[in-house]
C-alpha cells in the first residue's frame, strides 16, 4: 500500500504543477496556485436598526431562518390537521365538531400546506438561503434585496392561506389537487372565498419563489469563490440548485392553472368547466376541459415531488459522508443522478392520471418514463450504502436520521414501482396504498433528512449543540411511530379502503379496517407528540445547552470554516476562502487528521494520498 502512495504522490504533483505553470517541477509553491478573483468583492448592505437587521433583513442567513420558522409554523398547522383527520378516521364521531365538510377541508389544507408551504419553503427557502452562500464561499446571495422581497412575498402567501380558515365557508375542501369542476362548484366546502384565497396564495407563492430561485441559481452559477468549481460543490448545493431549476420550470404551470381557475371562479369563463347539470338545471358553464387542468397541475405536481426530494438527497449525502468519515461514493455519479432525475421528472406527470380515461398508449409511455427514474434513484441508494460500507460510522442522532431516511426512501420507492405500472395502479388508485406510498417517499423520508439536518447544522446557526439523548428519543419514537402509521396503510389499500373518505359507513371494510384505523390513529398521535422532543430540545439547548466547539463534526465544507461561528453578515470575515479540493476528503491515508477542509492547500498535504482533489 505505502509504495502506491509514493507513486501517486509524485504523479499528482507533476500533473498539477505542469498544468498550472507549464514546467515539470516536482515541488514548488505554484502547486497552491488558484487564479485570481474575477469579480470585485460584493458590497453588502449592513442593517443597523432592529427592523433592517431582523425584519426586512438582507442577510441570506437571517432570511433562511425566517423562511425556516415560517415553514415550521405552517408545518405545525398541517400536523394538527392530520391529528384531526386521524381522530375522525380512527374514532368516527368521537369529536362531534368534525363534520364531513371539515374533514375534506382538513385533507385539502394538510396536503397543500405540507407539500408547498412546508417542505418546498423549508428546503429551498430555509436551507437554500442559509447554506448556498456559505457552501459556495459567497458573501451573500447575489441580490440580497430581491431575496428579502422573496421571503416577505412567501410570508404574505402564508398569511392569506391561513386567513382562509376564518372566511365564511372556511378553506377549500376540494383535495390538494384542486380538480375542477367540483372545486369551484357550490356544494364543495370552501367553494366561495376559500378556493379564491388558496389560488391567490399559490400565485403569490410562485412569484415569491421565483425571486428567491433566481437568487439561488445565480449565486451557484456566478458567485462561487476562487477554486470552487461546480464539481467541488457539496451535494447539498447540487440538490438545492437542481431543485430550484425544476421549480423555475414547473411553477409556471401552477401559476397558469391558478390564474385560469381564478377566472373560471370570478368572472365565469369556462376554461376547465364542461357543461354541467345541477339539480336539473344547466349551469352557465360549458365547453371547457377539466383534463386540461389535470395536465397543467401535474406538470407542476410531479416535478414538485423532486423539488422536495432532490434537496433531501443532497443534504443526506453530505450528512452520511461527514458522519461516516468517508468520502461520498461516486460523487460524479451522484451529481449526474440528481441532474438526470430532475430532467426525467418533466416527462412522467401523467402517471398521476392513469384513471382519467387517457389513451392506454399514453399511459404506457408514462409508465415507461416513470420506471426509468428508478435507475438514477437506485444508483443514489447504492452509493449511500457504499459510502457507509467500511466507514467509521458514528451512530449519533444525525446518522440515525440518515439511516432512517435510506430505509424509508427505499420502502416508498418500491411501492412507487407498483403504482408506476398502469395495470397495478388502476385497482390501487385512490386507496390507502397511494397514501402510504407518497407519505413514505415524499413525506417521512424528506422530513427525516430535515431532522438530521437540524441536528447537524444547529451548532452552526446557534453555536450550541442539541442534546443527544433527547435527539435519540425523538428519532426512535418518530421512526417506529411513522412505520406504525404507514405500514398498515399499505394493507388497507390492498383490501380496497378508499382514501379521502370521511368514514367507512356500512361498507365491508368496516370489520377488518376498524381496528387498524384505531391503531394508525394512536400511532399518529404519538408521532405528532414526539416532535415536542425536538421543540423542548431546542428551547432547552438555547437556554442551557452545551456550547459547540468550532466545527464540531469535523466537516470539510466551507460553512464550518467561517471567521466566527455562527457566521456574521458577510460570512467569511476579511478574506474569502480559497478552495483547493472537494468537501469529502475524510480519513485520507497519511493525513494528520481524519478530515481535510476544502481550504487546505495541496502543499500542506504532500505526503498524503490526495494532495489535490
Amino acid at each position, binding site marked *: 500500500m505505502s509504495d502506491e502512495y509514493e507513486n501517486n504522490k509524485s504523479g499528482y504533483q507533476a500533473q498539477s504543477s505542469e498544468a498550472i505553470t507549464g514546467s515539470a517541477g516536482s515541488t514548488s509553491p505554484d502547486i497552491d496556485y*488558484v*487564479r*485570481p*478573483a*474575477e*469579480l470585485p468583492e460584493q*458590497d*453588502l*448592505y449592513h442593517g443597523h436598526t432592529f427592523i433592517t437587521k431582523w425584519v426586512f433583513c*438582507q442577510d441570506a442567513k437571517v432570511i433562511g431562518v425566517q423562511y425556516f420558522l415560517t415553514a415550521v409554523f405552517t408545518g405545525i398547522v398541517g400536523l394538527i390537521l392530520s391529528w384531526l383527520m386521524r381522530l375522525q378516521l380512527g374514532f368516527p364521531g368521537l369529536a362531534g365538531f368534525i363534520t364531513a365538510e371539515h374533514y375534506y377541508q382538513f385533507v385539502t389544507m394538510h396536503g397543500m400546506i405540507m407539500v408547498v408551504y412546508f417542505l418546498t419553503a423549508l428546503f429551498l427557502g430555509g436551507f437554500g438561503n442559509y447554506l448556498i452562500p456559505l457552501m459556495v464561499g459567497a458573501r451573500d446571495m*447575489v*441580490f*440580497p*434585496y430581491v431575496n428579502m422581497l422573496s421571503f416577505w412575498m412567501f410570508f404574505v402567501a402564508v398569511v392569506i392561506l391561513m386567513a382562509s380558515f376564518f372566511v365564511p365557508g372556511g378553506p377549500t375542501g376540494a383535495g390538494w389537487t384542486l380538480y375542477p369542476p367540483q372545486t369551484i362548484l357550490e356544494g364543495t366546502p370552501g367553494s366561495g372565498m376559500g378556493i379564491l384565497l388558496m389560488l391567490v396564495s399559490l400565485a403569490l407563492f410562485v412569484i415569491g419563489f*421565483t425571486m428567491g*430561485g*433566481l437568487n439561488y*441559481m*445565480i449565486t451557484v*452559477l*456566478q*458567485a*462561487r*469563490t*476562487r*477554486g*470552487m*468549481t*461546480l*464539481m*467541488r460543490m457539496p451535494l447539498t448545493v447540487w440538490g438545492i440548485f437542481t431543485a430550484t431549476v425544476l421549480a*423555475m*420550470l414547473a*411553477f*409556471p*404551470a401552477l*401559476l*397558469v*392553472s391558478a*390564474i*385560469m381557475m381564478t*377566472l373560471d371562479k370570478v*368572472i*365565469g*369563463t*369556462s*376554461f376547465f368547466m364542461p*357543461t354541467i347539470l345541477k339539480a336539473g338545471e344547466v349551469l*352557465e358553464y*360549458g*365547453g*371547457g*376541459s377539466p383534463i*386540461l387542468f389535470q*395536465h*397543467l397541475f401535474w*406538470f407542476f405536481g410531479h416535478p414538485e415531488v423532486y423539488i422536495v426530494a432532490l434537496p433531501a438527497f443532497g443534504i443526506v449525502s453530505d450528512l452520511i459522508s461527514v458522519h461516516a468519515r468517508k468520502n461520498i461514493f461516486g460523487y460524479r455519479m451522484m451529481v449526474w443522478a440528481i441532474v438526470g432525475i430532475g430532467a426525467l421528472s418533466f416527462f412522467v406527470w401523467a402517471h398521476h392520471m392513469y384513471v382519467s380515461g387517457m389513451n392506454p398508449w399514453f399511459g404506457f409511455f408514462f409508465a415507461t418514463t416513470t420506471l426509468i427514474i428508478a435507475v438514477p434513484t437506485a444508483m443514489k441508494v447504492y452509493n449511500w450504502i457504499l459510502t457507509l460500507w467500511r466507514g467509521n460510522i458514528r451512530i449519533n442522532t444525525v446518522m440515525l436520521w440518515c439511516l432512517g431516511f435510506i430505509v424509508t426512501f427505499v420502502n416508498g420507492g418500491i411501492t412507487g414501482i407498483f403504482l408506476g405500472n398502469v395495470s397495478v395502479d388502476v385497482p390501487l388508485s385512490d386507496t390507502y396504498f397511494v397514501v402510504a406510498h407518497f407519505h413514505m417517499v415524499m413525506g417521512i423520508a424528506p422530513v427525516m433528512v430535515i431532522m438530521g439536518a437540524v441536528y447537524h447544522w444547529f451548532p452552526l446557526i446557534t453555536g450550541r449543540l442539541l442534546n443527544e439523548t433527547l435527539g435519540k428519543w425523538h428519532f426512535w419514537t418518530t421512526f417506529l411511530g411513522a412505520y406504525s402509521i404507514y405500514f398498515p396503510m399499505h394493507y388497507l389499500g390492498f383490501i380496497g379502503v378508499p382514501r379521502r373518505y370521511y368514514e367507512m359507513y356500512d361498507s365491508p371494510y368496516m370489520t377488518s379496517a376498524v381496528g387498524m384505523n384505531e391503531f394508525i390513529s394512536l400511532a399518529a398521535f404519538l408521532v405528532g407528540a414526539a416532535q415536542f422532543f425536538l421543540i423542548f430540545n431546542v428551547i432547552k439547548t438555547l437556554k442551557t445547552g452545551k456550547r459547540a466547539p468550532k466545527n464540531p463534526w469535523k466537516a470539510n465544507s466551507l460553512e464550518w470554516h467561517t471567521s466566527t461561528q455562527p457566521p456574521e453578515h458577510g460570512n467569511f470575515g476579511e478574506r474569502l476562502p480559497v*478552495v483547493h479540493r472537494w468537501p469529502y476528503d475524510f480519513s485520507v491515508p497519511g493525513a494528520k487528521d481524519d478530515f481535510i477542509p476544502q481550504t487546505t492547500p495541496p502543499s500542506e498535504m504532500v505526503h498524503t494520498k490526495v494532495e489535490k482533489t
Partner: protein
Amino acid sequence: MSSDPKIDGFELKPGFRGMASDTGSDQTMFKGVHWGKAMMWIFLVSDTFVFSCFLIAYMKGRGSTPVEWPNPSEVFALDAFGVPVPLLLIALMTFVLITSSGTMALAVKYGYEKNRKMCGWLILATAIGGLTFVGMQVYEWSKLIHEGVRPWGNPFGAAQFGSFFFMITGFHGTHVSIGVIFLFIYAYKVFAGHYENGGKRGWFTTMKGDYVEIEILGLYWHFVDLVWVFIFAFFYLW
C-alpha cells in the same frame, strides 16, 4: 454588445470546447456576464414556460370545444375607408412593437458608448412605442367588447375564444405595461446620470448603477416582443 471579456489567468476558448472549459472552471460559469443579466435570462426562460403553458392550454381548449371557433380574419377585421381589411390593426400593432425593439437595441448600443443623451431619448422612444401598442390594444379590446365579445361568451362562436383571447393578450399587455413603466424609470435614470461616474447606489441596497442595466431591460423588452409574435401567429393566423 460588450467585447469579449478579459479574464485574468483564464483562457477563453471558442465553441463547445469553450463551453466545457467555462463550465468546468471556478467562480463563474458565464464568464464576464453581469449577475443581473444572467438573472434576466433565467427569468425569461421561466417566463417562457408561463407563456408556453398559456398557449398550449389555448390549443387544447380550442381543440376540444363542442362549438365552432370564430373565424379570426372576420372577427379581427378593421374597416379602412369602408372596406373591411383583415388583420389591419394587428399588423400595425406588430409593426410598432417590433420598431420599438429596434430603438431599444440602439439605446443599448449608445448606453455602452456612454452617449447619455442618445441613450435616454431612444429609451423614451421605446417607451412611447410600447405605450402606443398598449393604446392600440385597448382600442382593439373595446372594439371587441362593443361587438359583444366577453370572457364568458361571444356572438361568433365558442365561448372560450373570448376567455383565451382576453386572458392571454391581457397577460402579455401587462408585461408590456410593466415594461413601459420601467422604460420611463430608466429613461429618467439615464438622463439624471445614475450610470455615470461609477454609478449611483439604489435605495436600500448597495447595488451601483451601470449601463448594463439598459441591456438587461432590453432583454426583457425583446422577449415581450418575441412572445407577441407567437401570440400573433396563434390567435390571428390560425
